[in-house]
């Protein structure tokens, strides 16, 4: 129960600096940066699993036709 109450409070705390912040653009930039970080983190993760030689790998993927 205590944990359930904690979450909304935390989100209010998160919003406070936005309200008190210098300008709305600051918040927007911050959001965008967070989004970009997010994108970068998934791309970094995917970079690690992509086959190393894209050209060769794609070229050698040859299938016979099916239905």
């Amino acid at each position: 129960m205590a944990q359930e109450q904690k979450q909304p409070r935390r989100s209010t705390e998160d919003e406070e600096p936005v309200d008190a912040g210098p300008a709305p653009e600051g918040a927007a930039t911050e959001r965008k940066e967070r989004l970009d970080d997010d994108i970068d983190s998934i791309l970094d993760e995917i970079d690690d699993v992509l086959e190393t030689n894209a050209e060769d790998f794609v070229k050698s993927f040859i299938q016979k036709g099916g239905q």
Partner: protein
Amino acid sequence: MSGRIAAYRSAPYARPMSVRRVMGTETEFGITVAGSPTANPMVASSRVVNAYAASSHRARRARWDFEEETPLRDARGFEMSRQVADLSQLTDEDLGLANVILTNGARLYVDHAHPEYSTPEVTTPRDIVVWDKAGELVAYDACRFAATTPDPDITLYKNNTDNKGASYGSHENYLMRRSTPFADIVKHVTPFFVSRQVVCGAGRVGIGQDGRGHGFQLSQRADFFEVEVGLETTLKRPIINTRDEPHADPAKYRRLHVIIGDANLAEVSTYLKVGTTALVLAMVEDRFLTRDLSVRKPVQSLHEVSHDPSLGHLLELADGRTLSAVQLQWEYFHAARAYVDQRLGADADEQTLDVLARWESVLTRLERDPMECASELDWVAKLKLLEQYRQRDGLEWSNAKLALIDLQYSSLRPERSLYQRLVRAGRIERLVGDDEVTAAMHEPPTDTRAYFRGRCLDKYAEQVAAASWDSVIFDLPGHESLQRIPTLDPLRGSRAHVGDLIDASPDALSLYGALTR
């Protein structure tokens, strides 16, 4: 003989005014062998299927029963002669290729040069998702079992093209009333299929059958469709396939064999693909669709819709209107909602309402900004990833890395699959739980004949000589000839009908005795 099978009592037809219907999907997987790009794909496919069969440790392996297969019967009322048919159309010939019937009621076999998984018959779109996803796990396990090294050398891909001119299918099957004129299906379903790729396309890097054109398109399969209606599935592929092989009483039923869909990874894509199609078929059966939504030049339109991920392409309708593919989907959606309201009202089942709600929500957001559907629809999830790469690395559409991302999105190896990466990062919405998907690798659905088939294969493996969609054939002690139990009605043989009987029968002989008493 079926008349004597007392326990096989008739079931009510699944509510045809909803998303409920007897249906199933088939997936042909792309296949590669590490380090040997020229490896024979039939041999590799057989290795995979045989390895899975061997892993179940059964002393006896049931054959596929081909007796009721008629792949050359045309829904328009004639039968193609075997002499003029392309060899690839003779799917009823036992070529000795690997073939296994699973305890979940599914079939895993080699079709042409690909391993193929056909789900058991189910009755809801959600169950399609469960048993279709189970098929991905079965296929991956098969690769692991086939490997002689810790790292499997064979990799399967749930996609539909090699981008060099070859395509392989993922089909849907819907049981329909025989009394529905086939011409009505062609008329109302063709525009639906031309436009539904905005919802259920899997996304593809490459334009044209050989993928030589640079760019992204909505569908893996669209460019491989060349005619409006036809019997073929491997060449001159038609938007509406006429194979009339119901695997059920042909006087009562037909099976609509849909060959135009993409293989989907995203659960919402699969769910909506099947759920919205089931609703449209219900409306066709009930003659609820009165407005003619025919599209001019449907084959060309299909390609044009696929080639425009901005979704702005306008289709010309036979009635003179011009609509985008999303707008055309809205026409079907509004008809479907009115249909469910009028026919079911407050009695509408939860899943039918859920399909309608999700369909409406997806169309609304596709119209506003397709990227809003990136956590639900395959093509949008894939395009978003590709655009992020293009942005970060400044890549042109001709860059091989983008083609690799397209390919690896569909890899069935968990550590290589980009789809799985997105799921694990919480960027793709799931509809079903891992536990139920894992269970569905072995357990059949309970509400169709797949239950009878699956349970028999599980409990009486030693005595099942062969099986198919519409039969289980026993080799029984004391009987000289094999005993065939027909399962021609897909809704008989459910747990409600035969569950107690199977539970109470310690061996196949006692089950057979109870069934034929």
